[in-house]
């Protein structure tokens, strides 16, 4: 299985990840980079093929949500580069995506005067090819490749996509959010056990405080600013965060009886809100239940913005697009309001490096808008992370839910990724990669063998398990032991698993059961290298701190041994050293009580390199216990 990020590898922006599984290639997302204005803004499609025949190389394009860094390059790819295969999106994404594309196209072409950019007609033609992908629905791209979308909660219609072809499967998360907010629910996925999970890591290193306190913070800041007569500028996308903040402001204004005007800049307000009304199914349960009586997207206090209002005296609140202050209304208003220190700028989202938004957030006091214009920034700049991405905790939670065999990190900054990478490898013990753009990652997946199982064997096993369950009165059957004869396939004949009674015992003598311990024993022997060469002695050790005293230490060691029943251990052998356990002959777990330097007792686990497998098991057990 191959994974190649064409964009968003160790970076945020122009998300585009190519995955080849089971001989099929899927392109997940096709976004643009907002930090560049040259050809670097699009993913490097030449990587796929230089001949221009993308359709035969790529079996499907899947867009996870409508943000431009996930769908911005799509018209370029389909109309200007000639990809003609299927494109999948959820219905809200399909509805909203062309709006944002058109908005961006207008700014680039009409205001900046760029040429060679895609046209409105390109956007329309491109959208006609889109096939809607509903949540949880299994869609077959062809006879082998199947897709399924899961709720991602990042913006309206955001989805995580599970793809499977043959024995290989992948989950691409797009952007997701594990905590429900005012209008969206939390991301959720089945335990699909994909071969590879490709996850975003935008906020991979931060663990954020509760959403509620951030909301309170936001409202208090806005309120204090309008009380002192200042103007509040909130740059944001026309869709998504804007609606959430509008709901917040709306309810706060109602509760506090405020009369300070609130404006929304983009001309598409009413239309944008209608998308939210039509796709209420994609919001959270609370909104859904109450919408008949009061649709939260019918705003009472929020009015349309007029350019002339920018010089009006007195306090006001303005939601302006776009979110990164790189262009458009938000930049125009920023130019006017920035010098006044009573005013406030609230950046609710993420700013791509290189944009004015990022510079202001970085604390720049003088910002150059272009060669001729400079703006002194006296405005009170506040960064409130409302951006609905999962934080470190959320990412770990998703990995736990999906239980992947490999993890690939994309859509984040490199420095942050490496921290998360080590954390994931430490906690889940599964390999984790953070490929750069254009770096091909080949991941070996433990391929399953397709086989047939005899009905008789299944019935016997099932009945046996059912009896056992009934006695023990435990939940539904999800797994059961089975013992049968495995008959390997040859050529076209599939491998079969038969009941011993079905197997003709006279023909061939049945060999002894191939049990796990026997297998690893043989392999153990094969690991001894060359003749007479002494294997390299590399010993690893790692420390773990925990709380407790001597008695907890002893019980800890005991429970470690109990959790690894099949591994020989030395517990109780050494009377002299009660705080040490040797597992499997060479993995040592040694406890030391608090010393002067370290107040807490610690466990020292050390093992020779060759015992890495056992060590990783010991470590995971230790992790479980502590």
């Amino acid at each position, binding site marked *: 299985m191959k994974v190649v990020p064409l964009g968003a590898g160790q970076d945020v922006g122009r998300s585009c990840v190519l995955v080849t599984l089971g001989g099929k290639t899927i392109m997940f997302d096709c976004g643009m980079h907002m930090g560049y204005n040259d050809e670097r803004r699009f993913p490097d499609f030449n990587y796929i093929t230089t001949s221009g025949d993308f359709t035969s190389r790529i079996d499907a394009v899947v867009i996870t949500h409508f943000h431009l860094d996930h769908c911005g390059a799509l018209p370029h790819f389909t109309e200007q580069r000639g990809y003609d295969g299927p494109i999948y999106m959820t219905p809200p994404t399909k509805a909203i995506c062309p709006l944002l594309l058109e908005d961006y196209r207008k700014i680039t072409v009409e205001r900046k005067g760029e040429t060679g950019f895609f046209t409105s007609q390109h956007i329309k033609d491109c959208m006609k090819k889109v096939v809607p992908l509903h949540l949880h629905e299994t869609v077959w791209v062809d006879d082998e490749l199947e897709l399924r979308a899961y709720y991602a909660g990042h913006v309206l219609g955001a989805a995580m996509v599970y793809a499977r072809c043959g024995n290989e499967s992948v989950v691409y998360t797009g952007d997701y959010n594990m905590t429900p907010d005012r209008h969206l629910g939390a991301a959720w996925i089945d335990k699909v056990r994909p071969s590879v999970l490709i996850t975003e890591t935008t906020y991979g290193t931060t663990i954020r405080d509760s959403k509620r306190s951030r909301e309170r913070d936001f409202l208090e800041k806005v309120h204090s600013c309008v009380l002192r007569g200042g103007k509040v500028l909130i740059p944001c996308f026309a869709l998504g965060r804007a609606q959430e903040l509008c709901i917040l402001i709306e309810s706060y204004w109602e509760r506090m009886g405020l009369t300070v005007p609130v404006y929304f800049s983009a001309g598409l307000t009413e239309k944008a809100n209608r998308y939210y009304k039509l796709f209420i199914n994609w919001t959270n349960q609370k909104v859904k239940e109450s919408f008949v009586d009061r649709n939260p997207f019918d705003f009472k206090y929020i009015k349309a913005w007029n350019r002339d209002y920018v010089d009006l005296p007195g306090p006001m609140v303005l939601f302006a697009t776009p979110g990164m202050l790189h262009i458009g209304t938000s930049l125009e208003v920023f130019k006017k309001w920035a010098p006044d220190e009573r005013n406030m700028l609230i950046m609710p989202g993420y700013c791509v490096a290189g944009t004015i938004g990022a510079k202001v957030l970085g604390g720049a006091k003088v910002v150059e808008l272009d060669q001729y214009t400079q703006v002194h920034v006296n405005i009170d700049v506040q960064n409130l992370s409302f951006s609905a991405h999962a934080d470190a905790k959320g990412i770990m939670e998703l990995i736990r839910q999906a239980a992947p065999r490999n993890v690939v990190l994309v859509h984040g900054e490199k420095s942050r990724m490496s921290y998360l990478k080590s954390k994931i490898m430490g906690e889940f013990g599964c390999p984790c990669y953070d490929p750069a753009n254009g770096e091909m990652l080949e991941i070996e997946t433990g391929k399953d063998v397709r086989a047939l199982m005899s009905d008789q064997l299944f019935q016997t096993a099932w009945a046996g398990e059912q009896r056992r369950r009934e006695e023990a009165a435990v939940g539904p059957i999800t797994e059961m032991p089975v*013992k049968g004869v495995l008959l390997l396939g040859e050529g076209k004949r599939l491998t079969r698993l038969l009941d011993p009674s079905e197997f003709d015992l006279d023909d061939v003598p049945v060999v002894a059961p191939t049990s796990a311990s026997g297998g690893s024993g043989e392999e153990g022997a094969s690991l001894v290298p060359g003749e007479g060469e002494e294997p390299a002695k590399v010993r690893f050790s790692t420390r773990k701190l925990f709380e407790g005293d001597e008695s907890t230490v002893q019980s800890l060691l005991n429970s470690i041994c109990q959790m690894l029943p099949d591994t020989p251990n030395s517990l109780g052998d050494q009377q002299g050293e009660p705080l040490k356990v040797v597992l499997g002959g060479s993995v040592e777990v040694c406890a030391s009580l608090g010393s002067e330097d370290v107040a807490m007792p610690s466990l020292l686990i050390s093992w020779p390199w060759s015992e890495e497998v056992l060590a990783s098991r010991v470590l995971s057990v230790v992790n479980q216990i502590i």
Partner: protein
Amino acid sequence: MFIVDCGWPADDDADDMYADIGKQQQQRRPNGKLLQNPRDVLGTINWARVDFILISNYEQMRLLPYITEYTEFSGPVYATEPTKVYGKCVLEEALYVAQGALRDDTAGSSTRMLAQRGLLYSSRDIVAAMEKITDVRHNEMISPVPFVQVYTRSSGYCIGAGNWTVEYKGHRTAFISTSTFVSCLHPQEWDISILREAQALVFCDAVDPAPSSVGSSEIGDEGAWQSAHVSQLLNQLCSTAISTLKQRGRVLLVGEPYGVTQDIVQLVSENIVALNLPQPQFVFVSPIAEHTLQYGNIMGEWLCESKHALLYLPEYPFSDKELRKKGHLHFVSSLADLATKNLPQGNWFVVVPPSDTETLNHFVRQWQQDAQRCSSADMASGTGMAKFSVLIHDDDTARAQRLVNRLSVGPEITYVPVARRFTFHSIEQCLAAAERAHHVLVPSHVYARLETKAGRYEFRMFEFSHLQATTVDLDTDRHLPLDIQSEMTRRVREGGKQHALVEGKLSLSAGRIRLECLDEDAAPGEPAAEAAKSKTEIGSRYNLATTGSANTPSLTQRDLARWTPEKLADELNGVGLKASVVSAAAGSRAVRVVVPGGSATIHLDNEWLVDCSSSSAHWTVMTSLRQVLKAA
């Protein structure tokens, strides 16, 4: 064992069927209308043994609250999202009507009190039952019990309506519930693929002509209804309404505030706009109408293609949003409520559910009086409110006839049954498309008609009828598709054998069966343990998967001796770590590596000692170290 649909319409054939897969037989058991008490019927089923219930559309769930609340059934119930929300409305409306005068709060009243009133459940039970329904989407694969997969495909009958397919051992049984080929109505279109895939077909619902109409002429009539395109029928209803409204009359539409009614209202309001007539006041007399109409506007994804396309504009799929905005749409929960509300007078277009006879009678009587009072002069000048028409679109002729008799109205009534359900003609059409079918079950009345043709088909046909157990032996002596962990076959193969006695664990995840090695149990839930099965596998996984053969233990002590701390630090820096040479105790030197989440010190003595400060650090160090050593 599972149940498909649990309907109990007032005087219709109820659908209630179960199939017992454990015994490889299927039985159908519709509740007959002759039974006085549905409880007796339900009592014949051992509910504790029913594993799950599948609901195909919102008309087929009348018994559900009783089953979930008052029987031993404890399994999951599956239905599409519209089925769930509309179903709740439908049940609540039925309960509301049934309670009639006793409209006081029955929530909290005991079962016995409910029983005394002839009710099976209370409104609280409805809510509780709805909470037990799991939302599904068309084509969503679910696995309610291991090794059984179910999914639904659109049936076109009403919004969110589906036909369930149950797959067991690769053998698919399709339950064709109320369905329609008609594509001019608002629900998502009928999905024919269900017929093509299934090995066994069960037709749960088809129009059963009234017992009296067995004569040949009647059958001809029925055929005519079917052939008259439904859109023509709708147009006929619509034009009657329009012509009445044109003459400043009033229209009474008898129908539930969902389903076909929505199409008719839509058509009427569109035509009025097109003809430039004054918009009438649309009045819905029903406690649930506001909800059902609103839901229609957010269920865009479940609608037919043309309406679905509106979502992307974005436009509301139904016109009621527009009407409401202009104040032409009114909802009253009952007749009493109507009296208290001050609605604008003028042309009225009233929608009343057929079950609410009280209201129907009121309107008819009132308007008849109006007509009598109206002088002929008024009539001539067209100022009077004389004219009115009553429209009925129910496709059940018998029920409609009874209603007409009760209402005692004459020429004002227009009865156009909008027949959408499958007749035996449509079933015949279906059978032509059933490519893989081996068994077909049809209701006995359909069977009687198709019997003569049965020989033409390649499959066996069975009939079933009320409360009769029909047993079909499915050809299930098949092999189950199975995934075997490659590890297991590899071991056998390595042993140079063609077959071996193996022990393993069967696990079911995401609808697939997988045979796994037993030793995975060692550390449950830890992927690390799963990876720990074989050294070679580990090697190929942890190395950046370029070559699978580079195992660390192949390094020898001699290799290690070649390294100096400086060289190691250099190389480690080369793979992106922050490494530096530090002097450790006792004069020896070491390499210190700082990684996110911790640090590690590598002592390069005779025996290398890698001391890591945290477990997350050691993974990074270990991988990098291996990479470096391998490269050298």
